[in-house]
């Protein structure tokens, strides 16, 4: 049934992406494709994969933006991974005419049943974020499953039961957890770092959040990075006797 769940459990499994530290390596996107092409939504077909104009199904895409004149006057490059935001008020679900799209009451994950999808693409029109993909080969819509075939998979070790984009990120820019519970680490992270929604004006109430890039000073402080040394600053530690003598000799006795 494509109505949104009437009695959601309150659990909202979601992702948090830290735009401050994403390095734009595309590992999440590639590993996502790798896992999901073998997973419940697979295969994720490609057309003309080795030709001049390749195209294919991707659940994760990384954009790179150049931003100028931030609030602190600086400019920088921001890498921007984007996948389904598993919205609370998911327009892709309610427009579905067949009931193939649904939002799970137990954890808020939005999924597509490939056996009843007619491939009308209306869900991709309804989604403001471009999270819906049309599989040309199979004629059905596909999307991020929040790695539902990993996170509940008892054949995997407990630490591996997280979405593959999170486990593969070398920079630790992606986080996974229950965003419906304010006491979880991920919810605290969002609160602490002023996590935000994409296009809040669309009324979709996304579950996934983004953490903003931090200004240079704030980031240095947060990361505990050492202060840059000034060339004029006298060294804190006095040089030893031998070093001082060599310095004196080489400087022509002027020091």
């Amino acid at each position: 049934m494509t109505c949104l769940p009437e009695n959601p459990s309150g659990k909202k499994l979601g992702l948090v992406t830290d735009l401050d530290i994403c390095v734009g390596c595309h590992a999440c996107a590639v590993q996502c494709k790798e896992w999901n092409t073998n997973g419940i939504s697979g295969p994720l077909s490609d057309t003309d994969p080795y030709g001049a104009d390749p195209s294919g199904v991707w659940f994760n895409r990384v954009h790179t933006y150049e931003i100028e004149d931030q609030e602190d006057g600086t400019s920088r490059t921001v890498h921007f991974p984007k996948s389904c935001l598993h919205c609370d008020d998911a327009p892709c679900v309610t427009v579905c005419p067949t009931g193939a799209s649904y939002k799970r009451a137990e954890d808020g994950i939005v999924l597509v049943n490939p056996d009843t999808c007619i491939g009308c693409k209306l869900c991709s029109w309804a989604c403001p974020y471009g999270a819906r993909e049309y599989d040309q080969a199979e004629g059905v819509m596909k999307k991020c499953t929040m790695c539902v075939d990993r996170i509940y998979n008892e054949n995997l070790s407990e630490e591996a039961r997280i979405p593959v984009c999170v486990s593969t990120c070398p920079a630790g820019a992606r986080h996974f957890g229950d965003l419906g519970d304010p006491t979880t680490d991920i919810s605290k992270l969002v609160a602490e770092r002023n996590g935000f929604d994409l296009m809040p004006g669309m009324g979709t109430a996304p579950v996934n959040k983004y953490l903003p890039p931090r200004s240079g000073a704030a980031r240095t402080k947060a990361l505990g990075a050492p202060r840059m040394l000034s060339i004029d600053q006298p060294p804190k530690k006095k040089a030893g006797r031998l070093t001082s003598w060599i310095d004196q000799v080489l400087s022509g006795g002027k020091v």
Partner: protein
Amino acid sequence: MHPAKSVIFFTTATGAGYGLLVALFAYSLLGEAPADNSFTWGAFFSAFFLIIAGLLSSTLHLGHPMRAWRALSQWRSSWLSREGVAAMLTFIPAGLFLYSWLTFGMTSVYTFLFGALTAILSLATVYCTAMIYVSLKAIPAWRNLWTLPVYLSFSIMTGTVLFNFLVELFAVPTSRLPLYSSVGFLLYGYLFKGFYWVFVKSAPKVATIQSATGLKASSIRQLDAPHDSANYLMDEMGFRIARKHARKLWPLSIFFGFVAPTAILALSFVSNLGGDVYPAGLALFYMTIGVVIERWLFFAEAKHVVTLYYGEEKV
């Protein structure tokens, strides 16, 4: 938005078919339709043909046309599903409308009852079609006050001009009402379309690259796209070809869809050429070209907010 040919044919053909059913009801109610069985058969056949051909064509853009029946199940939440249900329901009173017209005559109470039900369900189907587009927040151009009146008035307009032609084709017209109402509905349809175009040109933008990315910076420029080549989203949602030619196309739509048929029909009643099938047919032909261009522009001009991630600054 990518203008799928099957969807353009679907909305144009079913719009005219349902508009024709509404016109048949209105004229039977007034007792102004030709009392000629060949007209009745011809008109109902045209309406059913347009509706069935349109519905079949709409399934052609599906990934799985054979599963189309499943689309009737989610009427509680989906306008697309409601459209399908309304379209299927309309066939029942429409068949009975034809039956009672042929059996009891156009002014009988049964013809009135089934005709009224047919007209209501026909308009409801067109209403649902329009609401599919109006309900999409991600496509701000469609989310305005005029989309719904344009769909309804274009349905009645195309249906009436078609009705006028069928009267000329199958019978000797006894009244000039079809001619007058054709001109009236052409004016009315393109008046709403005019408001729609003014809105699309002047409406405030609802989303920006800043709101799409949440980044607080005055200038945001895409440095690298996710892929070297276009993906599904860019082909389906970022269609640009017609948008580029929009300035040339909408005057053509107004000329073919409104100016030419109105002039031909007006001339035919001023110069007493009425009662001739050729001007009525020519007006129908020109109007169809204009309406197809209009429908093409409806899709091609509409920008989807996902294009913000791919280089658009405001939508």
